């Protein structure tokens, strides 16, 4: 009686091992997992609603050089969202075709719905999306018609407006940025897992988060020492007290100057230093290049989730 048992046991083990090998090597999911939906939004968080300074949890986000700042427009262009199944060779499961330009500040800065994708397999999926310049076919949502024309005519990816105040001085900014980036293999900021788990018979919500703080940090890649600064912006505003992209380009990161042309000093009287080391090439050390990098780096998934970003142009 032992022999058949042994043979049968070996046979079963072989079957199990084969199944295990197949499962581990191909990552195949079971067929009948049910379906669910995914609601995808986009927002800029509390900074768009309250400006700076503001408090999140126990952390106050304030400019160390004393400026307060309010945003009035925060337009960005999102394009083609793809949901892929990592267990099936990253096969596309569903997609949303953009592009759409959307003002994240409009309506008080609340989350904006981009799309709802239904009939998705109830399994964990990866998300990929693009941020691209506006073009003639770009749909405008909550965007002033004149701004929409500017976005398209100038090929802008972002149009960001607002003003900062300090000691009775008001400096406005209107910043158009171009460039195309792809964000893929996103980590979910909600639970630090990769992608999003679709749940059967439910609608799961996720959002793309453009994190405005990056634009005014003094480090290209934050490591806990980042500070919010506006003095270098204010210094190039000119007589009209309006900062533009062209003016940011005149601020040399190796020779930061105040409005009088003197070295720009920090609150301790030391020279202000922007750490561009990991990001900018030596022939592009200006504040516009730094902010352009920052805008690209500011895109997160579902909170502070990070994506693999690839520059498309």
């Amino acid at each position, binding site marked *: 009686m032992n022999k058949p048992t042994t043979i049968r046991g070996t046979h079963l083990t072989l079957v199990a091992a084969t199944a295990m090998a197949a499962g581990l090597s191909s990552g195949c999911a079971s067929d009948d997992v049910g379906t669910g939906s995914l609601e995808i939004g986009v927002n800029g968080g509390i900074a768009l609603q309250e400006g700076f300074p503001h408090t999140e949890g126990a952390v106050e986000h304030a400019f160390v050089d004393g400026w307060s700042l309010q945003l009035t427009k925060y337009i960005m262009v999102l394009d083609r969202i793809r949901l892929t199944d990592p267990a099936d060779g990253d096969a596309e499961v569903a997609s949303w075709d953009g592009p759409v330009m959307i003002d994240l500040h409009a309506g008080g800065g609340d989350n904006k719905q981009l799309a709802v994708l239904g009939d998705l397999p109830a399994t964990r999926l990866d998300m990929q999306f693009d941020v691209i310049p506006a073009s003639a076919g770009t749909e405008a949502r909550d965007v002033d018609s004149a701004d929409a024309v500017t976005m398209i005519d100038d090929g802008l990816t972002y149009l960001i407006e607002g003003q900062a105040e300090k000691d009775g001085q008001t400096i406005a900014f209107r910043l158009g940025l171009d460039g195309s980036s792809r964000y893929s293999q996103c980590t979910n900021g909600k639970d630090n897992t990769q992608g999003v788990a679709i749940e059967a018979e439910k609608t799961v919500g996720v959002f793309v988060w453009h994190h405005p703080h990056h634009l005014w940090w003094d480090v290209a890649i934050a490591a806990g020492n980042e500070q919010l600064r506006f003095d270098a912006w204010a210094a190039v505003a000119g007589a009209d007290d309006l900062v533009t992209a062209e003016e940011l380009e005149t601020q040399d990161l190796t020779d930061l100057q105040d409005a009088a042309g003197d070295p720009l000093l920090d609150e301790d009287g030391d020279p202000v230093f922007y750490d561009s080391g990991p990001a900018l090439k030596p022939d592009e050390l200006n504040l516009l290049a730094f902010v352009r990098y920052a805008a690209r*780096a500011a895109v997160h998934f579902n909170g502070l989730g990070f994506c693999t970003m690839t520059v498309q142009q």
Partner: protein
Amino acid sequence: MGTTRRAVLRTVVALAMAGAITMPLWSCGHTLGESIQLRTGVMGTTATGGSPASFVNRRGWQVDLTEAYVVIGPIYFYEAAPQAHWLDGVVGLRQAHAHLVVSRGTVLGEVLQQHVIDLLSGAVHDTGTWSGVAGQCQSAEVQLLPPGEHELGPTSHAIELVRGHTIWLSGVAAKDGVTIPFEGGLTLPDEGKLRLIEDIAGTMDLQDASESPGAAVVLIYVDEWLGNVNFDTLPEPAGEGPRVLAEGSQAYTAWQSGVRSRFSYGTIWKE
């Protein structure tokens, strides 16, 4: 079923299970790497491979260096590609953020000492042979700490050459008929990651490093360190002598930016 057939079946089962367990590792591209002994080095050069003793910088200054010393280390050679290489549009960036630690893959080699390097010697400075792992190195990290902040290597006798700083330079810069002798030291502030130069690009095959002649070498492009320096922003000395590369000047800030830039470094397998 006989004993032989059962043995065959058991072998098949074992192979199947082993395959099941290890197949994902193969397909994910992990380094299977065997242990290696990795010879390492550091060398001063320019971005174009010229002598760092004499070059024209981006701002039009003819720079002739008489001294260029750096205390460098630890150094790490990683399997993963640079994480911040996105500006080239080639490799994606796992975007770093406050408190985020990005994965750089397996450490294939490392130098766990500080070494004093004469960047004008024209030769590779030996930074020792270290245990490592066979694989394809795609990025590196160097640490620029104050001298003595880490264990010093065999060059500890040369530590006075950097005058208490991480880097010491002296030389003469000339432009439009103006000649400016200069000297000075630089120590990066102890803030955030300012003392870590991460994501240094460069590919080296370390599969057969133990048997291959040569060493994994970190290149320091001295001309990029000083690429954006305007030497006439250095303050005039009170008396005789060179101008000092003093904090607060454009020259110092530009120098610091150059030292911080990952584009001022490279790696190469050099025989």
